[in-house]
């Protein structure tokens, strides 16, 4: 029935692959983790946000909003008019306001951008005003990126959330828990009208292995999109490889291993879309357990031992990783331009340097291996996670290389069900762990990962035991990392930049985590089969799981059928 007035221009179909599961997933979009396709990259197509971010320019690309404006502590969201929900209601500021309140109530304390919200008001049908208690670049991120829920269905809850926020309830309070439970108990599987959406596409058929979406007349950008149908094939890695092999899919965001990539290499029209990722794999040294790791020289020596290129090659395969240009704890796109005027240490394999650093730190190499200053043999175990292949391979290789250098390092896997518990508790010698941060488009995300994740420093969750209050550095003196971190999030643009610069230098000097390599995000497209060209356009640096460039381009009408 989609073939109607909006039919001009829209034809053909675009096929995406994603591992959904209709037996357990449902239509309650207030539970994004468990709702059908809501956490997927293609969510922009049916459950839009006020705006998405262009990661390179850090500018907002308005979606449901016509324009957004943050002036002082006030965020004004001007909605497009004429957009309709599938139940026929227009999209109004009430929907947006309610959604923001619900998110605010459920956001854990200490979350940047949510803590600072004071009030949300719907000034008229298309204007939402968010009032912040403090303003800084990035504060608007949370509010702008909510997936907007229809008031008609969720109004009862959003109203309750608004009232609770007004009454000062926070996440974890009994009222909030009660509401959360109420929400969790609803799945809308049998709800009238199915999944209520307001995007360019709406659900047509929900099959066990295929979900078909069709153009939603009256939905956001329905007039711009060029595909009549958008199909999502259910598929994990294996299936997406098979689908790519038989050209049954146009776009896949599954992380494929080196072998998979070789498997599909010969497919006609295959295109690898590769963007530098914002996170990487590194090693956490447990300073709380081994005091010798507090010595900066020891950590540096370790990094000089490791052939990170080989590790990346094995773990991720050609094209699946890249080595950072600077060892500042930041992915290249974030580091760009920040450190042009400072001299940074560059850690490439240099066993001689490692030897002299260790000897300088009082270590001795004997026939059975390196001995610590106290004379005991240096022996460690690296833990990786069962089933996380890149972790496993990186850990194995690192252990191998350190052992060959003479530091006895074994490798072991921990079960994949709860490595976070193990890391958080500091129950390891050395652990393979991410560095930098793929989820947060702002630099501070990297600092969070470096200094605050798995570094609880409390008695029962010591983590890696790296100090954050007073860190001795050669060039910056003693710095308070925690304070700088706060500034990097909540300062003005200049303050943020300054803090970021100092923290980068501190990272480079003290190596709180040993960065091995950065992940290169690779996604796959098949061109020429159904789709003319799959191209990220201006959004090349957008992360494919957050603000996916291809989806933004589809909405813009930048991707067309053959």
């Amino acid at each position, binding site marked *: 029935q989609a073939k109607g007035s909006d039919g001009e221009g829209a034809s053909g179909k675009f096929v995406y692959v994603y591992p959904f599961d209709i037996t357990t997933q449902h239509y309650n979009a207030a539970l994004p983790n468990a709702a059908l396709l809501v956490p997927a990259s293609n969510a922009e197509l049916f459950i839009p946000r006020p705006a998405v971010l262009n990661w390179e320019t850090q500018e907002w690309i308005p979606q449901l909003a016509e324009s957004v404006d943050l002036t002082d502590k006030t965020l004004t969201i001007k909605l497009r008019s004429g957009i309709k929900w599938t139940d026929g209601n227009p999209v109004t500021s009430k929907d947006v306001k309610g959604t923001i309140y619900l998110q605010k109530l459920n956001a854990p304390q200490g979350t940047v951008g949510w803590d600072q919200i004071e009030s949300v008001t719907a000034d008229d049908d298309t204007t939402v005003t968010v009032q912040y208690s403090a303003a800084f670049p990035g504060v608007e991120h949370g509010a702008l990126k909510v997936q907007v829920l229809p008031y008609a269905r969720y109004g009862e809850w959003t109203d309750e959330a608004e009232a609770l926020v007004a009454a000062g309830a926070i996440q974890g309070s009994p009222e909030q828990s009660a509401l959360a439970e109420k929400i969790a108990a609803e799945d809308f599987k049998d709800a009238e009208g199915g999944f209520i959406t307001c995007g360019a596409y709406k659900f047509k058929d929900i099959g066990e292995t295929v979900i078909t979406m069709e153009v939603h007349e009256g939905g956001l950008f329905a007039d711009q999109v060029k595909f009549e149908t958008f199909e999502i094939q259910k598929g994990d*890695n*294996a299936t997406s490889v098979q689908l790519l092999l038989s050209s049954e899919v146009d776009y896949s965001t599954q992380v494929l291993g*080196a*072998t998979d990539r070789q498997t599909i290499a010969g497919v006609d029209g295959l295109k690898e879309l590769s963007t530098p990722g914002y996170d990487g794999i590194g090693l956490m040294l447990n300073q709380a357990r081994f005091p010798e790791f507090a010595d900066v020289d020891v950590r540096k020596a370790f990094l000089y031992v490791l052939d990170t290129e080989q590790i990346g090659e*094995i773990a991720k395969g050609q094209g699946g990783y890249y080595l950072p240009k600077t060892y500042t704890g930041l992915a290249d796109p974030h580091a760009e331009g920040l450190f042009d005027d400072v001299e940074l240490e560059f850690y490439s394999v240099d066993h001689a340097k490692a030897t002299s650093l260790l000897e300088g730190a009082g270590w001795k190499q004997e026939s059975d291996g390196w001995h610590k200053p106290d004379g005991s043999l240096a022996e460690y175990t690296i833990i990786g996670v069962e089933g996380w292949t890149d972790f496993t*391979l990186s850990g194995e290789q690192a252990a191998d290389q350190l052992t060959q250098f003479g530091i006895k390092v074994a490798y072991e896997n921990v079960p994949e*069900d709860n490595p976070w518990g193990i890391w958080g508790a500091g129950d390891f010698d050395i652990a393979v762990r991410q560095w930098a941060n793929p989820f947060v488009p702002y630099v501070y995300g990297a600092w969070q990962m470096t200094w605050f994740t798995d570094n609880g420093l409390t008695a029962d969750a010591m983590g890696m035991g790296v100090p954050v209050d007073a860190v001795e550095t050669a060039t910056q003196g003693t710095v308070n990392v925690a304070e700088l971190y706060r500034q990097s999030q909540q300062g003005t643009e200049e303050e943020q930049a300054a803090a970021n610069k100092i923290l980068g230098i501190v990272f480079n000097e003290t190596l709180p985590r040993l960065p091995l390599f950065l992940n290169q995000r690779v996604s796959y497209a098949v061109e020429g089969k159904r789709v003319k060209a799959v191209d990220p356009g201006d959004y090349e640096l957008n992360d494919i799981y957050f603000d996916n460039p291809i989806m933004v381009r589809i909405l813009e009408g930048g991707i067309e059928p053959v």
Partner: protein
Amino acid sequence: MSTVDAAILKPRKQFGETFFGRVWTGLTRSPAGFAGTVLVLGIVLFSFVGPLVVNQDNPTDTTQIWTEPSSAHWLGTQYEGKDTFTILVNSGAEPIWVGTLAALMAVFVAVVFGSAAGYFRGKIDAVLLQLTDVTVTIPQFLLMLAVVAFFDDIPAWGIAFVVGSTMWAFLFRSIRAQVMSLKEREFVEAARLQDLGTARIVFREILPNMAGFIFVNFVIAVNQAIYAIVGLYVLGLMPSGTPNWGLMIHQSWSQNFYLNPVAMPFVLAPLLMIVLFTIGLVTMGRGLDQALNPRLRER
């Protein structure tokens, strides 16, 4: 009485009639038993002696990833550029010895409990019987999953223990039933009438009559244990320390090697090894059964 005839004092050697004699005959005479034994021995040798013969230096080599079979790499190389054949040679030992250990354990427990329950009956019997009912009802894999999850750092012999403990129930029942019927057999009664003592009756009169049955079941149990252990690896629940068949299959599936034609030697080699080994065990079991099953023998 006159001096005893020397002929009487010297027992006639009847190797073919002793237990091991019959095992030997069973394994060598019947074509099936022979083929099975050759297969099993071959794979055992390959897996236990092979690692001593084959050069163990198998470095990661990023320039040699997924190469085709060649004279340098008989089965080509795998995803790290390591030699697949070398990995295969090293992959058999663990499943085999763990499986054997598990089977030994299961058979041992089943024999001890089974003969106790069958011989003494009464309370122990009732309790053990109920226990087997439950053991049989809980899906074996589930029990193993739970235990494997419980001890996160489980050593190989621990796995053997776990697998063994899920397998004993079936054998227990048949052993118990056999002991119960053997106990009532007249020759056991005859032994009691001669006042030969319980220990002798159980160990010398009853158990030897089941030796064939137990032996055959041991072979079957090894097979089942390998099924279970490899299964655990395939599910990816086991530490990936030592190379083994199950791990190879797990990697083939979890990393989608099975979709890549170049990876076929790596994917198919462990499958083939398991197929051959289990067929070997089964045919060996059949040969043994023919040689040892009293029902077949009496005829």
